[in-house]
């Protein structure tokens, strides 16, 4: 399953026509202790680059953007009781939401893992 990354530190896994979205290990490290995640409601239409979710750390609220255009299909209910999953398992159990893929061509503009690693190393 291919994984893509954005320069806003979201990751996106695409399987068939459904994408799973979360924030990267680098992102959770920068945010620190996460206390709440506000997820988009199922059925919400997201535009690539638009606001999708909000992640609240002890210190501040940060926006999470939609990496591609599509419709929200599912939210990660586990984050409601245990938002710290985003800190302990950002790129697996701590995923945020699943969405449809409206336009596969949008994926081409995203980074692969090697490119993202290089991007983070340069920050």
């Amino acid at each position: 399953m291919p994984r893509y990354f954005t320069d806003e530190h979201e990751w996106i896994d695409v399987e068939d026509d459904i994408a799973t979205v979360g924030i990267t290990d680098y992102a959770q490290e920068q945010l620190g202790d996460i206390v709440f995640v506000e997820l988009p409601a199922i059925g919400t239409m997201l535009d690539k680059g638009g606001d999708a979710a909000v992640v609240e750390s002890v210190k501040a609220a940060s926006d999470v953007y939609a990496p591609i255009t599509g419709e929200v299909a599912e939210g990660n209910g586990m984050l409601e009781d245990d938002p710290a999953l985003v800190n302990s398992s950002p790129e697996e159990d701590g995923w945020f939401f699943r969405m449809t893929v409206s336009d596969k061509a949008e994926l081409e503009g995203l980074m692969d893992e090697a490119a993202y690693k290089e991007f983070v190393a340069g920050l």
Partner: protein
Amino acid sequence: MAPEDMSAEMPLGTLPLDAWHRSHGGKMVPFAGYEMPIQYSGDTISHGGGIVAEHTWTRESASLFDVSHMGQLALKDADNDPGSAARALEKLLPGLITNLKPGKMRYSFLLTEAGGVIDDLMVANTGPHLALVVNGACKWDDIAHLREHLPDEITLTHFDDFALLALQGPKAGEVLESLIPGTGALTFMTAGLFEWAIDGETVHLWISRAGYTGEDGFEISIHQSKVEVLANALVADDRVNPAGLGARDSLRLEAGLPLYGHDLDLNTDPVTADLSFALSKKRREAGGYFGHQAIAARLADAEAGALARRRVGLTIEGRMPAREGAEVYSGDTKIGHVTSGGFSPTLGHPIAMAYVDSAYAAEGTQLDIAVRSKRLPATVSPMPFVPHRYFRGS
């Protein structure tokens, strides 16, 4: 993902402990004109680091905070008579300073004629002079204000070559007593000069038993050339870990302590800020300070139940925090706004300070806070949210 913009005006100053913070995994951010650690991480931090771990460690053991950004000032006259400095300072603030005995300290405010808060500060009588500790972000304005309004015979000294360390937490007393014998005898809001023998030298420390976390603890003033030795000696004790600005903010919020520039400003008076405890009774009547008329009018308003607005604590349902600027509602009516808010690590739910229309300021009043598209149910709650545990003597 877009983290909050932490940028500030350049250029930033560096603290005497800058390299020490970095070697202890301090994540440096701009604050009050300095690069300061917001939190720590890495092998030297026994609890693993991060704001919540640093917060909890402070409530359970002891944490070392570098607060050297704060302004350390001294006032005295040519005869080393703190009495004349006290009389002069009393014209600028509402606290009783002339009766402050050597070794005692008091919380007060610099006020405008309109009763607005220029800064909140600590005033101590050291014996030969008055020592003031003011907020880092306000210190240059405070110095200008003091210099403008104090008579020429009062000397104002800015101890800008001194660092300030805060050791805070229930184990702070035993830790500091083991390092600097005698400090354990200080009680809350008292201070003294201590000698610390280290590396064949005697270092002088001005130590006060106070802080900004709600816990027992100390603030230690030390020359910048010796501060690294002291920081190392303190964290060498297993009971002590360093803690950054993030934990300092969540701790003071739980303790109900206002942060200047957020919960206090030029447009806010101490009565509206619910800090009337710091308005000395004698001086409420006698006056003779900037802002007295306005303060007297606000106190009369408060007495008559006619105060326009008041600072309150809010306990928020659920887990979503409300931040500074969030609007507070009673039904559909906007009745105030949040000035500080966040998740309370100790309580496990969000808390906030807000200014609300005083008709809605009674404890137990049910309100809503607007956060993005949601309304968060909130209850007006007494502060501190987490009880203070100051050491007032055994």
